[in-house]
C-alpha cells in the first residue's frame, strides 16, 4: 500500500509517517465501473483522491468532459463551502478512492499540529494544480482565437487557410492606447461571436480535432446507482 501511495501527487515529498498518518484520516472506498460518485446539483461535502482507476466528469448533456487519473483529487471546493456539484462524477473503471469530508478536514487543520498544516498545504497544492489544469484547458479553447506570430521576413501575419476562412469583415478595432507600447488586439467583445466561432470550428476541422460539441457522448449507465456516499460502497 505505501509504495502505491508514495506515487500519488497528493503525498509527494512527504515522509512515510506523514503519508500513513494522512491516509489514516481518510476513508477508503471502492467503486465499480459506471458507479456514480455524485450527481449534478446534488450537495457534496467531501473530497476524493483517486488511488487506482479513474473517475469521469460528465456534463449535463452526457459529454465526458474530463477524466481524473490516479493521484488527482475531485470535490475539493466542497471542503470550504456548500456548493452543489456542477457535474456528475462516475467511475470509468473499477476505482479506489480516499474520501475525506469538510468537518474532519477543517477540524484537523484547526488543531494546530504538524499534520493539520501538512493536510492544508496538500489540499492547497491540489487546488492550485486544478486551477492550472483549467487554465490549460482555456488556453486550448482560446488558441484558435489568438493572434499568430508574425512572419519574420515580411512582418505580416502568415496567410493560412484558417485566416482565409476567417476573413469575414471583423469589427474595426478601437484605437490603440495612447502609450503606443501596447498594440491592443480587438477584445472578444469587439469581434463578433459568430466570427470567432467560425475560427474555432475551422481550426478544429483542420487539426482533425473533435469540437467540444462532438466530444465523446456516453449514454447514461444502465447500472443502478449504489449510493452517492462512497463510504456505503465499501
Amino acid at each position, binding site marked *: 500500500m505505501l509504495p502505491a501511495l508514495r506515487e500519488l501527487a497528493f503525498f509527494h515529498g512527504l515522509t512515510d509517517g506523514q503519508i500513513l498518518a494522512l491516509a489514516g484520516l481518510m476513508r477508503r472506498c471502492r467503486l465499480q465501473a459506471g458507479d456514480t460518485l455524485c450527481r449534478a446539483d446534488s450537495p457534496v461535502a467531501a473530497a476524493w483522491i483517486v488511488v487506482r482507476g479513474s473517475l469521469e466528469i460528465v*456534463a*449535463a*448533456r452526457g*459529454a465526458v*468532459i474530463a477524466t481524473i487519473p490516479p493521484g488527482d483529487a475531485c470535490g*475539493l*471546493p466542497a*471542503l*470550504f*463551502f456548500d*456548493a452543489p456539484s*456542477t*457535474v456528475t462524477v462516475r467511475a470509468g473503471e473499477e476505482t479506489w478512492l480516499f474520501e475525506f469530508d469538510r468537518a474532519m478536514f*477543517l477540524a484537523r*487543520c484547526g488543531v*494546530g499540529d*504538524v499534520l*493539520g*498544516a501538512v493536510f*492544508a*498545504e496538500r*489540499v*492547497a*497544492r491540489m*487546488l*492550485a*494544480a*486544478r*486551477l*492550472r489544469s*483549467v*487554465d490549460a*484547458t*482555456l488556453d486550448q*479553447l*482560446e488558441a484558435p*482565437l*489568438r*493572434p*499568430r*506570430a*508574425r512572419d519574420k521576413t515580411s512582418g505580416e*501575419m502568415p496567410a493560412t487557410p484558417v485566416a482565409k476562412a476567417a476573413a469575414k469583415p471583423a469589427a474595426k478595432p478601437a484605437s490603440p492606447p495612447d*502609450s503606443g507600447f*501596447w*498594440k*491592443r*488586439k480587438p*477584445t*472578444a467583445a469587439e469581434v463578433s*461571436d*459568430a466570427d*470567432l*466561432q467560425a475560427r*474555432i470550428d475551422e481550426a478544429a476541422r483542420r487539426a482533425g480535432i473533435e469540437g*467540444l*460539441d462532438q*466530444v465523446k457522448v456516453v449514454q447514461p449507465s444502465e447500472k443502478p446507482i449504489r449510493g452517492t456516499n462512497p463510504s456505503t460502497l465499501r
Partner: protein
Amino acid sequence: MSREIDLRQAPLFAGMTSIDLATLARVGHRLAFLPGETVFSGPIRDVSLFVVGSGEVDVFRREADGTMTLLARLGPGSSFGEAAMLDGRPRHAIGLARGALACWVLDRPAFERLRQSYPDTATRLLLNASRQMAERLVRASEQLNLAADRPSGTPVTAIVAEARRSLWDRLRGR
C-alpha cells in the same frame, strides 16, 4: 497614498487574528509601483502572492504576435498568485499598475519562513487561499461545463472569456 496597507480589507485574510495580521505584515513586504510600472513578470515576483492594498492592477497576456490582451483588472483587496506561490511555477500573465499602486507581497522564501516559524498562521493563510482558489475553480468550471454542454452551433467565446475572468477576478460580479 498611504504607506500602510490595511490587510483586514482583503478576503484572503478574513477571520485572521490581529496577531496573525501583525505576523503577516512582518513576514511579507510592501511594494509600491508607479503608473504603468510592471508589477510582476520577473522570476522572483512571478511566484509571489500579491494582495492589492490601494490602486489597481491590469493583468495582460502577451500574444505570439507581441500584442497584449487584457485579462482582468484587480482592485483593492484582490489577491493573486496563490497557485504560483504554492507550486513555484511562474504565471504567464503580466501585471501593470494602472495608477499609483501599493501591494503586500509574500514571496516563496518568506512563505517558507512563515511555515517554519508561525505554522498556525501559515495554515490559516493556506485555508483562506484555498477557499479563494476553490471559488475561482467552481466559477471557471461552471463556465467550462457550459461550453462543453452547449448545443451545437452555440458560440463558446463569451463562455470561455467569462471562465478566464473567473480565474483572475473573484470580485467581479459580486
